[in-house]
């Protein structure tokens, strides 16, 4: 039904012409879910925007064709394209908060979509809108239809977006990371909803995602994109039972899970090449173990492997195939001292309670409190990793910041937290400085956590300067050099600014900064959730190695269960400000006691490699 034929989309930027999508050919049948997977910068979103022709002003479809049934969308005038957009093709985006108009009630927006694309008017259109809200699973649709977006939760907003997209009865739904901004339990509901509606309507769906777990749950067919090209294309069953392209296998190897605990993850060294250059070889060759001279000098075509499974790699060439080299399996800490877990607790938190004051009235008096964290207790031994798991708003970040004493002055913190012999909550200025030398933090966003106006050298030296004033300039310099070596960054990084580094490199800088004062505890606040899978693997490996070498303990705050399985020794599950369950990682994951833990674990989309899935829906 939808057919892309050698699609090539160019973006004109200050660096030159960026070929964001190059020679992508694929076809989607009615009733089929096609998942386009890739890391950031692989061109998957640009492909979607090219189909609906919503490209920014500086981008254009340079060659190739987009065909929907018999119409060639690339050549249509804008006025006719508008009828297709919304009518035949609908889109849902990543961020439900910004895709809805904040000053219109959801009913009005829904009715507007219905009257634009169907014959229904007035009361009939409104009735249809109520009907749709009911079908996307919004409780009390008659009342909810007059709500404004701010009155709805993120999941509800995404449901409304789906209702709006589907109300026009499109033949093709493009879902661009529809669940990335949502919690994992909500993600499951939204994916189930999309699948139900798709089956009911026989609609085709193009799902764009970076999450291989989601793909293995919902897709019928899979396309892997790398650096603007489709490198592998096949049915879900065929792909997950035997991924062919070296990039695809290594991407799966980079996913953290419980089976890989003993080893380092498969981190793909290097980065995606910039797309403003011309390629004369395979684009993955610089990062590939199997790459030969042929890979570097000749552009691989898409080889058909039977059953619609195609792969762009010389390893599958009919003649003179390049032999595949398997990446070496790396163990952690081979030849190093085994990690020592002490008996005495490094950090003991008891009955921690954090309340944020609500101010109101003319004089801004405190009129009440919002409880963010209730009576949280846990302890952490030296060299141990405790994962604090929970969905957004469960109070995990607040707990971390309260322990680090970053909430002094903004929130009321009760309870007790002992770091060694220091009572953190009642520590005076000098004691607090002593405590700060022992605990540090790594943040989620590697772009926001480094001051853009400071050189990397200054950033790394700042902590030493503040907490170890006894060290002189030469000593400080020596420490900064050591830090760079620990996180494997070149010495030349010192004089550069943060914006000159990629996301993964910045996160390394942030880790080095935290290590600068030789802390015994690092609070890791979602350190990998803004990163791509392959980069996430690099960072997790680094964290694991550092723990082996330095014996540092991590309080690891995350919502990513895969990371928890891979890294954590013990797990504490948080819900609505309370810890509902704590336990050793292995026992908690295999035999969860609390109902919420079970829901959470069941909602996690998992990748099953090497097993043919019986449930695959083949196109009718």
């Amino acid at each position: 039904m939808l057919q892309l034929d050698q699609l090539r989309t160019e973006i004109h930027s200050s660096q030159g012409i960026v070929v964001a999508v190059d020679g992508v050919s694929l076809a989607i049948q009615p009733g089929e879910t096609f998942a386009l997977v890739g890391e950031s910068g692989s061109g998957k979103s640009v492909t979607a925007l090219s189909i609906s022709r919503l490209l920014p002003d500086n981008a254009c479809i340079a060659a190739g064709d987009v065909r929907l049934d018999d119409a060639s969308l690339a050549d249509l005038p804008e006025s006719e394209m508008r009828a297709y957009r919304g009518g035949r093709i609908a889109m849902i985006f990543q961020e439900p908060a910004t895709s809805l108009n904040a000053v219109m009630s959801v009913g009005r927006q829904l009715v507007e979509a219905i009257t634009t694309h169907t014959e229904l008017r007035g009361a009939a259109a409104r009735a249809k809108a109520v009907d749709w809200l009911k079908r996307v699973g919004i409780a009390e649709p008659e009342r909810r239809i007059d709500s404004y977006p701010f009155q709805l939760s993120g999941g509800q907003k995404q449901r409304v977006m789906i209702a709006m997209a589907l109300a026009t009865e499109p033949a093709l739904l493009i879902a661009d990371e529809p669940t990335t901004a949502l919690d994992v339990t909500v993600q499951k509901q939204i994916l189930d909803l999309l699948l139900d509606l798709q089956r009911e309507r026989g609609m085709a769906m193009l799902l764009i995602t970076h999450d291989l777990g989601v793909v293995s749950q919902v897709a019928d067919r899979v396309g892997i994109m790398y650096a603007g090209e489709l490198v592998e294309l096949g049915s879900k069953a065929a792909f997950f039972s035997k991924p062919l392209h070296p990039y695809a296998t290594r991407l799966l190897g980079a996913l953290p899970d419980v089976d890989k605990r003993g080893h380092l993850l498969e981190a793909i060294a290097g980065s995606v090449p910039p797309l403003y250059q011309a390629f004369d070889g395979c684009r993955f060759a610089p990062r590939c173990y199997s790459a030969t001279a042929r890979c570097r000098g000749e552009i691989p075509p898409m080889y058909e492997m039977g059953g619609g499974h195609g792969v762009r790699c010389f390893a599958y060439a009919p003649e003179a195939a390049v032999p595949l080299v398997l990446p070496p399996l790396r163990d952690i800490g081979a030849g190093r001292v085994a990690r020592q877990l002490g008996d005495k607790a490094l950090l003991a938190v008891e009955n921690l309670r954090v309340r944020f004051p609500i101010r109101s009235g003319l004089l801004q008096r405190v009129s009440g409190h919002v409880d963010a964290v209730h009576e949280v207790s846990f302890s952490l031994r030296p060299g141990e990793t405790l994962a604090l798991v929970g969905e957004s708003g469960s109070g995990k970040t607040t707990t971390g910041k309260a322990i680090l004493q970053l909430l002094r002055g903004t929130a009321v913190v009760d309870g007790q937290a002992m770091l060694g012999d220091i009572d953190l909550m009642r520590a005076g200025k000098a004691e607090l400085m002593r405590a700060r030398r022992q605990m540090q933090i790594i943040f989620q966003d590697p772009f926001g956590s480094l001051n853009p106006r400071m050189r990397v050298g200054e950033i790394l030296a700042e902590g030493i300067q503040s907490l170890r004033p006894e060290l002189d300039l030469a000593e400080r310099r020596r420490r900064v050099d050591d830090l760079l070596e620990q996180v494997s960054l070149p010495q030349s990084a010192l004089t550069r600014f943060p914006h000159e580094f990629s996301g993964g490199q910045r996160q390394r800088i942030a880790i080095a900064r935290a290590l600068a004062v030789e802390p015994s505890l690092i609070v890791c606040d979602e350190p990998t959730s803004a990163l791509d899978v392959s980069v996430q693997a690099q960072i997790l490996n680094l964290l694991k190695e550092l723990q082996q070498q330095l014996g540092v303990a991590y309080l690891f705050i995350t919502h990513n269960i895969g990371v928890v399985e891979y890294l954590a020794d013990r797990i504490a599950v948080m819900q609505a400000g309370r810890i509902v369950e704590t336990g050793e990682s292995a026992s908690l994951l295999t035999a969860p006691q609390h109902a919420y833990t079970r829901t959470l674990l069941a909602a996690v989309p998992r990748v099953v490699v090497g097993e043919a899935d019986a449930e695959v829906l083949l196109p009718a």
Partner: protein
Amino acid sequence: MKIVVLWTDWVVLLVLLGTLAYGWKVMRQPHLAVTWRKAFNTATGTSAATVLAVFLVIGLLDSLHYRPAIAGKADAYATETRSVLDDILHQQQTGRERSYSAPLAYQGYEKEATVIDGQATRAYLRLQHGGAHLDQPEQQWAADVLLRTLAGVGLGLLVAAAATALAVLLLARKRRQGLGVAWRSLRRGQVGFPLRAVLLTLTVLAVLAGVMAMLATAYHVLGTDRVGNDLLYVVLKSIRTALVIGTMSTLVTMPIAVGLGICAGYLRGWVDEAIQYVYTVINSIPYVLLIAAVVLILMVFIDNHPDLFPTSAERTDARLFFLCIILGMTSWTELCRLIRGEVIKLREAEYIQAAQAFGVGTWRILLVHLLPNVMHLILISMVINFSGLVLAEAVLSYVGIGVDPSMQSFGTLINTARLELSREPTIWWTLATAFTFMFSLVLSANLFSDAIRDAFDPRATHK
């Protein structure tokens, strides 16, 4: 000759040095250099900067003051303080007429009482300087003006051609290309920097200046005012006043706005309340009244302390100086509010929290982490404020509380034009002159500030 450095001259010199130092810093910091290059990468921005640069040079020449020695006496200097610009425009300064004369006129604008053939009568009298070289002005005037205009155009084109040749030569040397190749890439605008636009702007400016210069040797190009002063001289002298007011008031504004804004945003609590209270109060006082009151107090002070201000130039300069301070003190609230808002946003940034986790002191966070990150806001509002302040001076002088009436400024020019417009026949050239010059100054400042904002605003999209 005794070199005189007036208070505002100090300011001008310090600003110049500061700008040079900043430029040196920009060259050494790659991220700043890239952003600034972006600001100079649009044809509009660079052309505006070129025009602005010409105004700046005129203002600078007018800021180099001295008192000439009295001939024959040692250690005695004239009471008159002159600037380098005065020397360049010596002919215009001294070539005073009796009263009004139209641009390029050779006779007075109004009939004057005179004695012709022993009979008292009223007639249009020949000007003393304008067109004085013509024997039979009725026949010769048009040809003479045309000839001088053409000569001026030629001169301007010659200068422009020389500048272009120099640019081509430098380009060819820098790129190690032949002259022809360099010229062709310049003509097609393929040199990365909008050099073509700059050269075109320079050509237009050179032609205009050439024509003015050729005509000014024999005529009053822009006419004369009520007491016969050449308007070209007056308006060129006004440029310095406008520039001083624009830059110095901004300089006064900056530390107040930035300091208070950052403190209010980061420290919150009672500091924030107090600062907000102060700027709300200042904002609600009509600033014209405030300035009028302060200027009156100042005038009394200057009159009572003649020993502090020995020459009239120093008196008028002191008034200008304090006017700038008052303007600056009343116009910091907008920027302060802007910076406070930005800092409230930034204080939640993770790098600030990381610094707090290191126990970094409050002062260091304010200066090292927050100040550099609001610098782009400061720069943007500095250039936008500049033109606003130039206009404010015009308004204040129009109301009569601006600069000293003896000091040439756009405001005083417009104020006199107000009366002249209601005369019959109308004197139109004062207003036209003031308007044209002020308009080109403010417009080029605005266009340049637009380019800077586009380059520095992180939210602006760069296509």
